[in-house]
């Protein structure tokens, strides 16, 4: 398994813990991630401004992977949605590809051949590595940990571009990926709720009101951490957690982890090497469990 690693704008600056843990887990699983400094923004922010601009920006990134002779491996679900949609429409619709290529060639001198596919890390772990192979890699069971899975909207939607992968109305892949580590994936009512990240730039008040219901429900359920796989969701649930919850409970603290950090722990890596010091929201409960996990290692 060999992929072009697409980091996007946010992960390499704000979520180095996600990047670090994803790289370590991939390496251990024999997934080769190849870097390129030619990638740029996926195009997502421009979709509402000019649909064609966004498609051209996505196509430019597909061309970078094409020149590497590799499919794309993503960490951010917003990038995943945008690049997947672009690859599906451009790979399938030859007339549109021609039209887009005329403009892409004018801007960059390059054309897209319609061959590149896009895979989010969780999908690679679930589909290409597979739960059985992951189970074989578990060195330290996370039995006793309770996590709430948050599926970023663009991990699975619009479903028309994700080839029937998982079920957007009753998603289960991230829950299964959590359970393979020995931890419990807690079921909860607000699981499908959007983080609100898409509205943050336009209306902060509306955006910051959106993560509250999920954080409250999960805290009441007594979980150790919310587990996600998207930097935008992290901005809402972790980075802005204090602002989101200040009118409800100024001392509110619910840790947020990236899935690759959880998997890395179960594969026997230390919290330190998985970048846990960069997770902003700490809790005594989680710290105690992590220390116990480390102490129990042979």
């Amino acid at each position: 398994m060999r992929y072009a690693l697409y980091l996007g704008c946010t992960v390499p600056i704000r979520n180095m813990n996600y990047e670090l843990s994803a790289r370590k887990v991939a390496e251990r699983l024999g997934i080769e991630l190849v870097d390129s400094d030619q990638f740029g923004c996926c195009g997502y922010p421009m979709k509402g401004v000019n649909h064609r601009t966004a498609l051209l920006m996505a196509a430019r990134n597909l061309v970078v992977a094409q020149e590497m002779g590799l499919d794309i491996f993503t960490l951010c679900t917003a990038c995943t949605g945008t690049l997947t949609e672009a690859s599906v429409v451009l790979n399938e619709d030859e007339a549109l590809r021609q039209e887009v290529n005329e403009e892409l060639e004018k801007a960059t001198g390059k054309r897209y051949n319609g061959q590149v596919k896009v895979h989010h890390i969780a999908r690679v772990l679930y589909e290409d590595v597979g739960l059985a192979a992951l189970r074989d890699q578990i060195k330290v069971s996370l039995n006793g940990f309770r996590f709430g899975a948050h599926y970023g909207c663009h991990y699975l939607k619009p479903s028309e571009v994700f080839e029937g992968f998982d079920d957007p109305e009753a998603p289960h892949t991230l829950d299964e990926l959590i359970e393979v580590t020995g931890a419990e994936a807690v079921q909860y009512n607000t699981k499908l709720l959007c983080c609100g990240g898409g509205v943050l730039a336009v209306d902060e008040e509306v955006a910051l009101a959106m993560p509250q219901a999920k954080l409250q429900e999960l805290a009441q359920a007594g979980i150790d951490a919310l587990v996600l796989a998207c930097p935008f969701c992290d901005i809402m649930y972790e980075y802005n957690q204090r602002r989101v919850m200040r009118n409800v409970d100024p001392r509110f603290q619910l840790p947020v982890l990236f899935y690759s950090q959880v998997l890395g722990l179960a594969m026997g890596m230390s919290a330190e090497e998985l970048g846990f010091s960069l997770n902003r929201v700490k809790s005594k409960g989680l710290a105690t469990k992590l220390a116990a996990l480390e102490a129990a290692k042979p």
Partner: protein
Amino acid sequence: MIESTQLDPNFKDEIANEPGGEHILSCFTCGTCTASCPVRVVTDRYSPRKIIRMALLGLKEEVLSSDFIWLCSACYSCHERCPQDVRITELINAIKNIAVREGHVPPAFRVQVDLLRDHGRLIEIGDYDNERRAELGLPAIHEQPAEVAEILKVSGTIALGAAAPAPAEDDAK
């Protein structure tokens, strides 16, 4: 009161001709979209059903100059559930694209156009960021703005920026 003389009956066709807006005429106003909407839960300023109804009626100026079309979080909940396959998330994007062409651009997006033009990405990379990356054993990353700026130019988006282009390095000295 809505005055029929103020309606633009061609607005729905304009939307139907915009990429993403093709299915607007299939809407039968059932409201599954608004009932599914996580933004609607926190504010009554946003209702996809209302936006589609206003568009079908021809309330062009009210829709295009509104703040509410920009409140869609693009979660695709309505998109997945719509029984008429109106493809609502893409439809709202189509309406936003028309609004932009008519001069209604939220300031945040003007800033984003400038960031993309100057850095090729939404978050600028400073020396400090690469120092931190090096400490963690992560490879340095570099900005690649040239091709993205050309794309913004070719697709006519660059003019929407908020500020004049950043001076070239020689000029800045």
